[in-house]
């Protein structure tokens, strides 16, 4: 991968981290409402994944979507504005944290019903197949989402209909407070693909380069063979499920162990091993991410709320 791309990925990972850290503060300050699910700890997954897509490849994910939005090219300004419910958010403040999308960036949301977006992903891919192109749809979801019927129906038709879908399970070990082993018949999510005769793989979701490599291979396979693929990325969320999680279900030691395995730290170390990248460059990138986050907060705070006319707008096209 060329240096520019590597540095861009590093920038995105740090930006996601900073944006969410500030988001958490603003949530505590009561400026953000509803549910907010932080991606902190999992940045390597969507960053590696989406770095491997072509712009024409579609992305769709669940409610843990701030990182995905930024990786897809949605600006920190829009993300922050949506969190604050401002009209300058990509969803005009009507969607909030769980509903970030951009047709222009080929990012199809941000969906809050667990597993509900998987059949929709099959539909995006069906649409492309119908129109005769070879776009790939990348659908991300959690480990907990693999136990619901939506998952089964979507994976089955993707195989039966030869749809170009890359199914990506972010196995962060828990669905809310329920450990994978307590909810799922199998502890390796990738094994579920066997029931569909679907090609599958498992990758370290804390290592962005490993994710990128696995995603590249999977995307090529999906595009070339016109068949779906299930990729499991093993990762961990450093924060609670959403704001205000009692976290009775895991120990501080466990969390600590994973935090020592920070995807940003891992990536930084890996980059510094390359002789053409210096610590100064990375520091500069971190400073830029910091500054851009600050600008995003200012932009969001300064942005207007949606006017009352927005209340009845867009219920219908006609």
């Amino acid at each position, binding site marked *: 991968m060329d240096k520019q791309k590597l540095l861009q990925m590093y920038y995105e990972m740090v930006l996601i981290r900073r944006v969410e850290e500030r988001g958490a503060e603003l949530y505590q300050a009561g400026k953000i409402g509803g549910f907010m699910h932080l991606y902190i700890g999992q940045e390597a997954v969507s960053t590696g994944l989406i770095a491997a897509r072509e712009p024409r490849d579609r992305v769709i994910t669940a409610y843990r979507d701030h990182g995905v939005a930024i990786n897809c090219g949605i600006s920190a300004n829009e993300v922050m504005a949506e969190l604050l419910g401002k009209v300058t958010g990509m969803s005009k403040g009507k969607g909030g944290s769980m*509903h970030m999308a951009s047709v222009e960036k080929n990012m199809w949301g941000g969906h809050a019903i667990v597993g*509900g977006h998987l059949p929709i992903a099959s539909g995006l891919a069906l649409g492309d197949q119908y129109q005769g192109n070879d776009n790939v749809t990348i659908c991300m979801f959690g480990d907990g989402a693999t136990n619901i019927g939506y998952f089964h129906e979507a994976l089955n*038709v993707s195989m039966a209909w030869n749809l170009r879908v890359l199914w990506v399970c972010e196995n962060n070990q828990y669905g809310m407070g329920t450990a994978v082993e307590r909810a799922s018949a199998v502890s390796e999510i990738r094994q579920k693909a066997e029931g569909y005769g679907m090609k599958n793989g498992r990758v370290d979701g804390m290592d962005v380069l490993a994710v990128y490599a696995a995603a590249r291979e999977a995307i090529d396979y999906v595009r070339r063979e016109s068949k779906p693929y299930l990729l499991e990325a093993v990762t961990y969320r450093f924060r609670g499920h959403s704001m205000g999680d009692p976290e009775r279900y895991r120990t501080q030691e466990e969390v600590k162990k994973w935090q020592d395995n920070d995807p940003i730290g891992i990536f930084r170390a890996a980059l510094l091993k390359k002789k053409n990248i210096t610590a100064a460059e990375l520091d500069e990138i971190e400073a830029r991410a910091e500054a851009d986050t600050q600008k995003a907060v200012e932009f969001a705070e300064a942005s207007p709320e949606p006017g009352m006319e927005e209340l009845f707008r867009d219920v219908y096209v006609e």
Partner: protein
Amino acid sequence: MARITMREAISQALWEEMERDPKVFILGEEVGVWGGTYAVTKGFYDHFGPQRVKDTPIAENAILGAAIGAALVGLRPVAELMTINFAFSAMDYVVNQAPKLRYMFGGQFKVPLVIRAVGGGGRQLGATHSQTPDAVFAHFPGLKVVSPGTPEDAKGLLKTAIRSDDPVLFLEHATMYQVRGEVPEGEYLLPIGQSKIQRPGRDVTVVTYAKGLELSLKAADELAKEGIEVEIVDLRTLRPLDMGPVLESFKKTNRAVIVEEGWRSYGVGAEVAARMYEEAFDYADAPILRVAQKEVPLPYNRTLEQAALPQVSDITAAVKEVLK
């Protein structure tokens, strides 16, 4: 104009729209090789091919999810649910996804989707397969709910639904596919969201739709013999609900009966009655009566099933009651 059946009218609308626009396609269980469980898409598979007449697994969530996804990227899917009862196996897409995606994402998305589903009782299919839960779907903003009572309306409204950029639930009735009526040939569009006087009269306003229309027209004939002239207003669309013709008629007759096949409680008639009183309170000379299904799961036994379903005699009795 040609005199054709409801089945032919629906079939014609689908065929014409598919011929007109390559983005229109059908998906659902047994829509292809089988030709449609109710033979509505008979011959489509051979003419349009497997991609545009797509047979699916028995997986209602996959069907509606796929349809919504395809609609998001610009196609115009017509998803068929073998019966409306199976909507409960994929309810989230019908009421929680299709109707909300556009609004929730600030107007970025369009969901030009039609969900066709047949409903209704009277065929001894038992409690899980015989429902007319139309009011349930009409409760959700973002969805349009259409339920025609004549072949002409079926054709005109279905063609419009397919061209609509919003999700439309199109409800057909299992015992009405043989109903015949005059239907304009070729291009014929009717606006969604307009009620219509299907039979003029001066004495009592009967508000109804779908199967209720068939029953009400029969009741009207019988009542006419006794000199009672009922005016029948067909809602045709449950959301958006057009009260115009209903109120106009009611302000003339001052008496009304609402006829629906579904259960009375929390049904269509409740909303229509509430609206009539809200908007024409001073015109009511007698309580508006509702003729609807008895509050039981529909039994298999034919006699019991018919006893639970609204009958022509229930309508005539109600009309006479409001005239007392």
